[in-house]
């Protein structure tokens, strides 16, 4: 955290650099010397499996290393001149590792940015960061009995938890059920196996779904007899999380379950319209694919910023918090992290705008 002194010095120098900040000049010398936008420098990209990699990042000024294991990090990467934003779970241990942070990314066929991070980012690349967020975090100290249910890249937030537990010197009773397609697809396989060998409190069940099929959560007793007594953290594909939630709800232990969903529900391609939520007022409205977000907000009597209403003046631009919207003029789809012109944008699935 920047000290009070640093901040007031910055404010003083800004008298001379106004309307810019001193950061805007300093970053020309070193891209990390700016706190206007959180930045980071990629220092290492290490392949974990065929289609996943761990990206280690040195954060720039203003980044707080004080995150919790299990939280995710917003990362902006420049591709073709344009910044693209996504969120990935941090796999590094908070307040450690020479202040370096790491995310582990699995390239998915439809995930343009994840593929780029796994295959196309070189050390030395400057990225943008958003402060770590998320409720899917391990408390300190952790509960005595834990169950982790993960699948695929859902292992990543749990890896941060496992590493942090070790570093904190805690050794709760951990049962870990992890699913992957085949043995070569298990991210952190060596580390997990080593954990199992050296930590007698940690037991791992690897479900290789290509041979064994999916975990049957209705018959979990066979795998983890005392699962109802354990505080559970589950992360993976939507179908798995739905099955987990059903099982925990049916057993009346839903309050012991913490889940993290990566995917945002999105209408099928071409399917348009959706429920638009206006974050600050928490009002929402269902809109078709031809009604603009501005019209929707005005119907709810939200004071939407407006100007030309034809897409030329940028008075109405607002940040898209989550979901997707479509630019009615060009047909371009925008996603969370983009700023959108509400007068010419319509919902493309459920979305939330920051107003």
């Amino acid at each position, binding site marked *: 955290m920047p000290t009070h002194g640093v901040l007031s010095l910055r404010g003083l120098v800004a*008298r*001379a*650099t*106004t*309307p*810019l900040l001193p950061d*805007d*000049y300093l970053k*020309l010398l070193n891209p990390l010397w700016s706190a*206007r*936008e959180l930045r980071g420098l990629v220092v290492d990209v290490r392949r974990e499996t065929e289609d996943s990699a761990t990206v280690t990042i040195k954060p720039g000024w203003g980044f707080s290393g004080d995150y919790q294991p299990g939280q995710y990090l917003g990362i*902006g990467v*420049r591709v*073709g*001149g*344009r*910044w*693209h*934003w996504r969120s990935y779970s941090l796999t590094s241990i908070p307040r450690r590792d020479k202040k370096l942070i790491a995310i582990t990314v699995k390239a998915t066929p439809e995930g343009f940015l994840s593929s780029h991070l796994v295959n196309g980012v070189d050390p030395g690349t400057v990225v943008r960061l958003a402060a770590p967020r998320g409720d899917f975090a391990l408390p300190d100290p952790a509960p005595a009995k834990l169950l982790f249910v993960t699948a695929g890249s859902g292992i990543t937030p749990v890896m941060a938890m496992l590493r942090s537990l070790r570093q904190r010197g805690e050794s709760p009773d951990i049962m870990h059920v992890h699913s992957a397609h085949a043995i070569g697809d298990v991210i952190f396989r060596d580390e997990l196996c080593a954990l199992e060998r050296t930590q007698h409190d940690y037991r791992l069940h690897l479900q290789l779904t290509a041979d064994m099929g999916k975990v049957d959560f209705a018959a979990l007793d066979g795998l983890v007899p005392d699962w109802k007594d354990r505080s559970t953290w589950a992360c993976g594909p939507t179908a798995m999380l739905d099955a987990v939630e059903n099982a925990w709800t049916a057993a009346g232990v839903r309050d012991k379950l913490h889940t993290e969903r990566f995917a945002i529900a999105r209408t099928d391609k071409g399917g348009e319209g959706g429920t638009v939520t206006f974050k600050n007022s928490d009002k929402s409205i269902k809109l078709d694919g031809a009604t603009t977000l501005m019209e929707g907000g005005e119907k709810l009597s939200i004071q939407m910023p407006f*100007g*030309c209403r*034809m*897409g*030329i*003046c*940028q*008075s109405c*631009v607002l940040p898209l918090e989550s979901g997707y919207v479509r630019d009615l003029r*060009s047909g*371009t789809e925008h996603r969370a*992290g*983009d*700023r959108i*012109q509400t007068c010419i944008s319509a919902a493309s699935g459920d979305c939330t705008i920051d107003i």
Partner: protein
Amino acid sequence: MAITDIKQYVHLTEADIEELARELDAIRTDIEESRGERDARYVRRTIQLQRALVVGGRIALLASRNKVAWVAGTALLGIAKIIENLELGHNIMHGQWDWLNDPEIHSTEWEWDTTSPSVQWKYTHNFVHHKYTNIVGIDDDVGYGLLRVTRDQRWKPEYLANPVFNVLLGTLFEWGVALHGVEITKVRKREKTMAEARKDLRVIGKKVAKQVGKDYVVFPALSGPGWKHTLAANAIANLIRNYWAYLVIFCGHFPDGAEKFTREEYENETHPEWYLRQMLGSANFTAGPLMAFMSGNLCYQIEHHLYPDLPSNRYAEISERVKALCDKYDLPYTTGSLMHQYMQTFWTIVKLSVPNKFLQASSDDAPETHSELKFRIREGVRESFGVDPATGRRRGLRTALRELQTADVATA
């Protein structure tokens, strides 16, 4: 009395106008789809260059008692301020670079190095001026509530000082732009309350305090005993920027051929006609790459008005396509050298200081404003010409203007 029916004025059929709009839309799509790393690098490098010039200028002026340092520092700072205001500030606030999705180069975040607060500028300029371009009585940029730039504006005694106001506005341009945010014309017409105006003034006041603090307190103080020289240098750098921005902007809408419009025209306007109004209401000036850069590519004012939010570095290539469309649809494309365009502007401002009764031309057929009625002074000029049977080319406004000049004109 300015153009009320743009369709009639351009002498094209409705189908032609719609076809033209489709072709203009296609240019937008082509540019949008081809934006990429090359464009992004252009704006990043412009920002780097501009900041390096500022740093260089400010450092040189720390030794402002030395004559060479003073001249170099003033020049660097003046150039930096010009680039900052035009190619960066004006264009970034138009959203030309919003597609980068970079919060540091974004219309919602950018603040520029002038006394005008960006939030007010985006309202009066991006919205009012670019949507209601050259509509007398709505677009406050027609004379800025101070000057008489078309005889469509009713004469008032204070316009006798038109040439004086013109020089004053050029000199104090950044202050004029800042006050423009208060929309004095609207306040006068009671469309805006004094309370609202006071609120705007407070916002301007805050920005002014920062700007004045920087140029006239902080940097002079840092120069120690040379503070007077630094203060003068900063004032002159601001003046250089003021005159240049004034020149570029006045040559965009006030040379002959940049048409003015009536409220009625806007009330019945379709999107294709909006395009036409932008084309006819703006004027370019010829510029090489360096001058284009220093003008923030506003030498391509026509292209800027057609596509205010497309990246400025592409206006040059867009202009080739717009010129080709003007040829195809037989429309005028108003351009000339900077001096030529400014002399026309200047002469208009001088002339219009007197009431219309001392002026020769009527507001239907004057150098700075025309209307469809100018074609009515002689019977027999058709509403549209259709396709030339000999060449197969469309005939529009250019042919109509030629007909009017060459054929015998009956006195009205």
